[in-house]
């Protein structure tokens, strides 16, 4: 909180003390999700079938691997922000809230890292 401009004097004084950044990121990732999920559904509908050969060949190309990695980032990030709000709304005991949000952060980062590494494994041909 600053003490210069009128906005600086009131910033952070709302009941939650924070949130605008969270709110904006929720919208940014929502817009990202709309793009990557449209891409994913269109790609699924254009695949000849869902067998291993078709799907792995498709996903190993950079044109599919990059959006899939971005999809993992956007989706896990958005889910992390959304579940944080759910936890904050229903868990009021500070210790439990802290523990759950910590677990959520670790799970979201872990899930996204696993998804991105899996895509990279395919793209870099570790499975031949």
């Amino acid at each position: 909180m600053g003490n210069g401009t009128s906005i600086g004097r009131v910033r952070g004084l709302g009941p939650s003390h924070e949130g605008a950044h969270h709110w904006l990121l929720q919208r940014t990732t929502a817009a990202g999700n709309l793009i990557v999920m449209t891409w994913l559904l269109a790609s699924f509908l254009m695949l000849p079938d869902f067998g291993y050969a078709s799907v792995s060949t498709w996903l190993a190309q950079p044109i599919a691997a990059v959006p899939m990695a971005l999809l993992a980032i956007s989706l896990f990030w958005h889910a992390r922000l959304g579940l944080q709000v759910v936890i904050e709304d229903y868990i009021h005991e500070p210790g439990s809230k802290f523990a759950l949000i910590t677990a959520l952060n670790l799970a979201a980062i872990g899930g996204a890292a696993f998804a991105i590494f899996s895509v990279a494994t395919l793209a870099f041909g570790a499975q031949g």
Partner: protein
Amino acid sequence: MLVSILHRVTGSAMALVGLPLLAWFLGALASGPEAYATFTGIMGTLPGYVVLFGLSWAFFNHMMSGLRHFVLDIGAGYDLDVNRFWSVASPIIAAALTIALWSWLLLAKGI
């Protein structure tokens, strides 16, 4: 109010069920044909299809109410009749999109 609750429920469901399935799908692909066959084998059962159908409905529902949020965020759509119209239309459009997706999958892909 129902639209708001559905937004939260579908979002939570996709986060807790959909994202683990996405990670499993990608991990199985990276692990090779056998692991992928295990994934498709389980998701190809009736309960598997029920989960996938439910997730696709959750996605479209969350997408429509999310798009409605975008409009409300810019300060538009607060007239009672307009607001009510889209709160009713969003889940209906979502259901139509879900049916359209699975019709395509069933008819064009023979799934």
